[in-house]
């Protein structure tokens, strides 16, 4: 054995570099689109250019005749066995849920819906032929604006009779967790403060870097599906449940998956269509989307109007909060669908002790891309609203925004604390996180600089934004999900297999796509079983290898899946204990286990766990009646959520001449309980922050009045680059969770949830003295400038819903049936620039 002098005494808490990096940094990767199988065919989708239309005749003759084309299928052709895209969470018993067919048959309800599938020997041939499919469209009136949709003047689905899908409500007086919010507001109108605001949560696009891809191989006894998905287990369930193929005949594999952020928490029309076509043709089939297809067809996130009424006493003590949401579902109720805004129901009260609370959420159908989970899913929206409102309250009272929060937050002595929404927070220390953040930030110095700039009328003003947040993560206790009519449980599964040669296989039902599970799980198991970190292999993402699992989303992997691993490891030890006793010729009661060794109490006799694995393999000398197997499975159903929290502080400079905003400093101190791997945690925080900051400043999915997504590529959907962001100061306080053995809380979404309000609060703070109390997100330079021009009269205003053409050198040539394109101009030295 090599010396292991450098080995840390415990793996948990060590900044291990990741096991999974090696293949990713050398290009030795297995993205779904890398898969090539003998005889594999390629799919191209024919998609609707219209937001709402009846499908007339589809002429596929020309496409069928094109070179290399094997088949063309319309929705009608696939109707009998294509399955259906499911909604797993009807939020009310009477929720209206339009049927969502993978390939539309009679009508499309949003642009980008698939109406036909072309199958050819190459992707290029399939794409060429897709343009030869001639669809007779009968355009229908489309409803695109969320508020207009709620008025039901134009219907997204005429047969439903309304666009309103479901109304979900939580009232603290009704459920007995607090007072009557209307009474609190009425009282405050007489003798206190009432703040009323309406905020827009713009529509976002998850924009994971790997476009989605699906390969289906029907050539074996099982149908093997590789897909770029966060949820292989749920995909297998959905395919089996809706296509009639027995679940045991379907194997789903999520190989290397290039990001998700909720965007791959879906069972997609493309997956169902590829599955159906491969079954029909009996040949391996691949579909890989283009980025343009990702943007229009991948589910979007957020998209709410938030009407908020906050009542307080004159000193800033909050007495009530009433929330009225309008949430855009898009054209269909996606897998979590209306559940996403509902997840915010327990979070608008955040870290505060509000005596009365009411949450109302009306979900609404429109003729736009469907909406579902995007990093944070319901909680960023809630956190944004309350943290903006607390700043507004501070401004109204004339208090520092930190002080107003301190007046209202739960103090650390008060945990566990049951909130006005009915959630019990197990642990937290908001004072500690805030104190540390203020110090790291240099809060007082920056406030002083802000004052100087205001006094001197500096064209570049400075603003400071505060966000003290908490979130609930670790989806989820199954009984809670059951009480909410969610279609599945919230448990997670793990298996540990002790191999004869001393290495350990850990099978996890959680399915990573960048989070570093292989490394973190190895650290947990190394400590628990006393085996070297390197000797642990983590297996996941294949329903044949990891047959039980509920996958990765909602910051659940560690707090639920990690706990399952701990329990499986403990079972391994308990299974090994009698065998150790037998081999060491001692009583089981005298056997102790520590650091990978069983020893006999009071003696120097002992043997390693891995020696026992070999003994189980040979089984030459085994106790009577004990099975020769140390392996163990565990399925863990969490008893509660975990509640990470933190204090984020942001300084923004605002160029009052142009409206341009520049981040000056960002500090966050998060309490995520026990940290397994600080390096991975830091990465999660950084990435989360940038996604949240991007919502505040840059990103928005914009549709024109025809229902066309105009921010439909990376040219117009403006993701930030390294040059647009800064280096953040991240730190931690720790109050370990009491709801799991490891004391951990989730971290995957924290940065995204907390940062958006911190940034917007900072931008507003920079120019509040000019009479401005809101800028609609994203806070573009133009919106900031307009707000300054109108001294707050306009908080944002509308944006021209069109993108500039940069690549239109020669006119549209996409659909030869749609009229003759302008001839390309031979004379220009086209090319160049970008």
């Amino acid at each position, binding site marked *: 054995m090599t010396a292991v002098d450098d080995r840390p005494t415990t793996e948990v808490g060590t900044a291990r570099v990741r096991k999974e990096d090696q293949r990713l940094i050398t290009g030795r990767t297995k993205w779904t689109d890398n898969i090539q199988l003998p005889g594999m065919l390629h799919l191209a989708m024919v998609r609707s250019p219209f937001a709402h239309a009846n499908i007339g005749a589809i002429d596929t003759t020309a496409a069928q005749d094109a070179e290399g084309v094997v088949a063309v299928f319309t929705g009608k052709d696939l109707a009998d066995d294509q399955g259906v895209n499911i909604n797993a969470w009807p939020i009310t018993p009477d929720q209206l849920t339009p049927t969502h067919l993978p390939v539309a048959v009679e009508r499309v309800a949003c642009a980008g819906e698939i109406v036909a599938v072309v199958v050819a020997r190459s992707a290029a041939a399939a794409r060429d032929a897709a343009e030869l499919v001639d669809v007779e469209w009968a355009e229908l009136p489309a409803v695109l604006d969320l508020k207009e949709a709620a008025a039901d003047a134009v219907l997204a689905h005429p047969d439903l009779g309304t666009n309103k899908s479901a109304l979900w409500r939580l009232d603290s007086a009704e459920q007995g967790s607090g007072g009557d919010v209307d009474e609190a507001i009425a009282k405050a109108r007489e003798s206190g403060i009432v703040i009323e605001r309406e905020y827009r949560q713009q529509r976002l696009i998850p924009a994971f870097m790997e476009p989605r891809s699906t390969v289906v191989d029907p050539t074996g006894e099982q149908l093997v599906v590789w897909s770029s998905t966060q949820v292989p287990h749920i995909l297998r369930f959905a395919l089996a449940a809706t296509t009639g193929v027995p679940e045991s005949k379907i194997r789903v594999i999520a190989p290397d998956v290039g990001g998700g952020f909720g965007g791959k928490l879906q069972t997609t029309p493309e997956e169902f269509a590829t599955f159906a076509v491969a079954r029909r043709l009996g040949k391996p089939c691949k579909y890989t989307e283009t980025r343009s297809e990702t943007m229009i067809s991948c589910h979007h996130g957020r998209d709410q109007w938030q009407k908020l009424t906050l009542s307080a006493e004159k000193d800033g003590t909050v007495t009530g909060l009433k929330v009225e949401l309008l949430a855009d579902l898009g054209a269909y109720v996606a897998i979590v669908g209306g559940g996403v805004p509902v997840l915010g129901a327990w979070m608008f009260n955040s870290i505060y002790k509000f005596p009365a609370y009411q949450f109302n959420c009306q979900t609404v159908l429109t003729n736009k891309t469907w909406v579902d989970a995007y990093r944070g899913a319901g909680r960023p929206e809630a956190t944004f609203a309350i943290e903006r409102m607390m700043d507004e309250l501070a401004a109204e009272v004339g208090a520092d925004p930190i002080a107003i929060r301190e007046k209202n937050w739960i103090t650390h002595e008060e945990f566990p604390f049951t909130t006005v929404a009915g959630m019990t927070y197990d642990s937290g220390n908001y004072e500690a996180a805030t104190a540390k953040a203020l110090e790291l930030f240099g809060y007082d110095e920056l406030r002083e600089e802000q004052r100087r700039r205001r006094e001197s009328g500096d064209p570049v003003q400075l603003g400071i934004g505060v966000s003290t947040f908490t979130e609930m993560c670790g989806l989820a206790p199954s009984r809670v999900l059951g009480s909410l009519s969610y279609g599945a449980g919230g448990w997670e599964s793990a298996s540990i297999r002790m191999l004869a040669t001393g290495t350990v296989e850990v099978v996890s039902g959680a399915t990573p796509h960048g989070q570093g599970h292989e490394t973190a799980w190895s650290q947990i198991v190394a400590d628990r079983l006393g085996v070297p970190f390197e000797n642990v292999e983590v297996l996941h993402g294949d329903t044949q290898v990891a047959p039980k699992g509920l996958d990765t989303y909602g910051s659940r992997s560690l707090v639920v899946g990690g706990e399952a691993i701990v329990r499986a490891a403990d079972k391994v030890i308990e299974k090994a204990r009698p065998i150790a006793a037998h081999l060491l010729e001692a009583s089981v009661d005298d056997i102790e286990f520590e650091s990978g060794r069983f020893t006999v109490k009071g003696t120097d006799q002992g043997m390693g766990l891995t020696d026992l694995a070999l003994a189980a393999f040979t089984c030459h000398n085994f106790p009577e009646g004990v099975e020769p197997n140390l392996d163990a499975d565990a399925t863990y159903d969490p008893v509660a959520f975990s509640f990470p929290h933190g204090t984020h502080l942001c300084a923004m400079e605002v160029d009052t001449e*142009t409206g341009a905003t520049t981040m000056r400093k960002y500090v966050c101190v998060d309490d995520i309980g026990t940290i397994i791997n600080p390096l991975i945690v830091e990465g999660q925080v950084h990435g989360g922050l940038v996604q949240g900051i991007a919502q505040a400043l840059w990103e928005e999915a914009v549709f024109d009045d025809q229902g066309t997504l*105009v921010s439909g590529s990376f040219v117009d959907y403006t993701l930030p680059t390294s040059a647009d962001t800064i280096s953040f100061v991240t730190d931690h306080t720790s109050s370990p969770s009491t709801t799991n053995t490891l004391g951990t809380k989730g971290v995957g979404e924290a940065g995204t949830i907390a940062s958006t309000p911190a940034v917007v609060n900072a931008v507003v703070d920079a120019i509040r003295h000019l009479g401005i109390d809101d800028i609609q997100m994203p806070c573009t330079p133009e919106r900031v400038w307009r707000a300054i021009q109108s001294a707050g009269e306009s908080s944002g205003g509308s944006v*021209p819903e069109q993108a500039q053409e940069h690549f239109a050198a020669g006119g549209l040539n996409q659909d030869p049936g749609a009229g003759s394109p302008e001839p390309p101009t031979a004379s220009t030295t086209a090319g160049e620039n970008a």
Partner: protein
Amino acid sequence: MIPVAFDYVAPESVEDALAALAEAGDEGKVLAGGQSLLPVLRMRLNAPERVIDLSRIANLRGVCEDGDHIVVGAMTTHHEVAHDPLIRDHAAVLAEAASTVADPQIRHRGTLGGALAHADPAGDLGAPVLALDAELVVTGMGGERRVPATEFFTDLFETAVGDGELLTAIRIPKHTGWGGAYEKFVRVSHQWSIVGVAAVVKGSGGTVEQAKIGLTNMGSTPLRASAAEAALAGASGEAIAAAAAKAADGTTPPSDLNGASDYRAHLARVLTRRAVDRALGA
């Protein structure tokens, strides 16, 4: 996504390229650096039958002096333009603008001639070329003609390059000793300019003697800010700001996701003041 199929030729001389163009007629498309054309082809916004690649024509690339001019070959890349000592000395604003085009990888392949011929009003290179009073050398079967930059850009994506002609070089009068600055306004760094201002300024001691201002994305073509230029002559201090306030006079800037027309006009005024101040060394 994959382009529609096309034929490809890569001539090794301008003569061969012109012959290939003539043969292809309306069905041909010239490929320079390809950094805008390739996305066009991939998204099937255009489907030429024949692509004529100029990258094998060695003498279209490079920078040289010709008396009181510098001559930049059409196929000189943005990266080369940004780093070329002659351009930095005699046409600094062009080097600066080229260094802001898209991103490093694009600048390694994209070319000055290609960008100008593509004539995207949001492209960064039309404004400095206008401000520098450059001439564009257009070559056809009948020989060369020189088109003043002010006459080169005729409309959105349209130029004075005629059927069967190629843009082969850019001739720039030396602006030795003039200050230059390109102010580019974007929301995220890899974005096309919302507005850009190229200022070329002769002056000293904080006083402008002569200023030439090119505007990016303030209309369907790059534009000169003539009213501001006139007002800038002899200006200093507050008068520069007042003159810059005329930068958007006579323009009809576009309205889109990234800025409504009036906002662009406002940006042009602010950026003109900043560009002139910087070019003047203020």
